[in-house]
């Protein structure tokens, strides 16, 4: 087993535990929680094939679902963003993506922010739409998406900045 896959597996496990044991209990202002675990999908190596990432994202979402009794909402949202991730990659990184040579640590902060924002907002929108499951409560869905997204994006950026220095 290569060191890259060990790193991926440990990242998976750590993110799931951090999410269910710490971040699910933050409940800032009553209902705002960050969903940091999608950092796994964001930082998944670009070179690997798309089928793998869709499947692993499903497992990731299902793990979170089992711990938080939420049916399949996290799994659905994760599969969705994992599937449309290449589109977002192309949109935010442009030609660099075509050569398949993205190293997330070396990208500029502004492009990384665009990429994180796109994935987070889409993930949260799917997540909360399925969780509320009621189109007449669209305001509640948008409200939750907005506030949780801000929290998640900030946390993701802080995490990538904190942990990128170590590997240089």
């Amino acid at each position: 087993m290569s060191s890259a896959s060990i790193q991926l597996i440990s990242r998976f496990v750590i993110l799931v535990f951090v999410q269910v044991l710490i971040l699910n209990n933050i409940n800032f202002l009553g209902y705002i929680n960050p969903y940091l675990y999608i950092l796994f999908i964001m930082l998944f190596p670009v070179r690997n094939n798309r089928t793998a990432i869709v499947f692993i994202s499903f497992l990731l979402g299902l793990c979170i679902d089992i711990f938080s009794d939420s049916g399949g909402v996290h799994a659905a949202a994760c599969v969705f963003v994992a599937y449309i991730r290449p589109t977002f990659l192309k949109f935010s990184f442009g030609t660099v993506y075509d050569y398949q040579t993205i190293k997330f640590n070396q990208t500029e902060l502004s492009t990384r922010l665009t990429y994180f924002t796109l994935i987070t907002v889409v993930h949260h929108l799917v997540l909360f739409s399925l969780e509320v499951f009621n189109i007449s409560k669209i305001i509640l869905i948008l409200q939750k998406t907005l506030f949780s997204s801000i929290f998640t994006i900030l946390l993701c950026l802080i995490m990538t900045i904190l942990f990128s220095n170590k590997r240089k």
Partner: protein
Amino acid sequence: MQQIINFVFRNKTFLLFLLLFGVSLFLTIQSHSYHKSKFIHSANYLTGGVYKQVNGVKQYFNLKEENNALLEENRQLKMLLYNIEIDTTNYSTLDSTYLGDLYKFRTADVYKNSYSLTKNYLTIDKGKKDSIKVDFGVVTSKGIVGIIENTSRNYASVLSVLNTKSRINAQLKKSNHIGSLTWDAKSYEFVQLVDVSKFAKVKVGDTIITGGQSTIFPQGILIGSIDSFYIDAGGDTYTINVRLFNDMTNIGHVYVIENLNAAEVKSLEHKIDE
């Protein structure tokens, strides 16, 4: 045939995406109907075990509050015990001598509690091994918490009152007007009592208790006090905002209530349905 296989290979990511998205949608929809969320719940061996370890640490932070709550409950029970002769008039309707035979109480620790989602569940440390079954009521000394929805050998998950799926029979304490308790997912301090007849005399500050119509809770378990109320668009019923007595964000120890006559009552009602 060759073309079909080629098609599958070319679109394998999309097909996998469709399949997995379909599976998660199925699980989501299933979790929206009561008693159907069988596969994905936190009352299994792995998640229960993890939450147990974490709870072992977390409990220490709440020891002081838990002790105070227990002291307060002891005080109330002592008051009841020593004033029982004076109070007998109030209990003549309830026939307290039979209460011991009708309901069985068990204690349990809460391992996991959530209140920020629209479908909230708790996980407790008692399961099938301790004869906890589906549809038992869960309360604290202050008021109701929810209903058991799933059980495994060592753990059980509780459908919280803060769940848009939850519907609990409740009534006004002063009169016998009943309604059902729902939640609009807006605040964890308030639940809504709907379908209360407009002939009921509703006053802000009145107490709401569980009604005697379900086989889950005994009559008279505290729920909350009336915060505000309005008449529905139809004009026949009230919707009442109820401020819960329980602080749902801080629940440590709970009681699980078993109604020993539930099977009998249910079989009788089943016969009427047929």
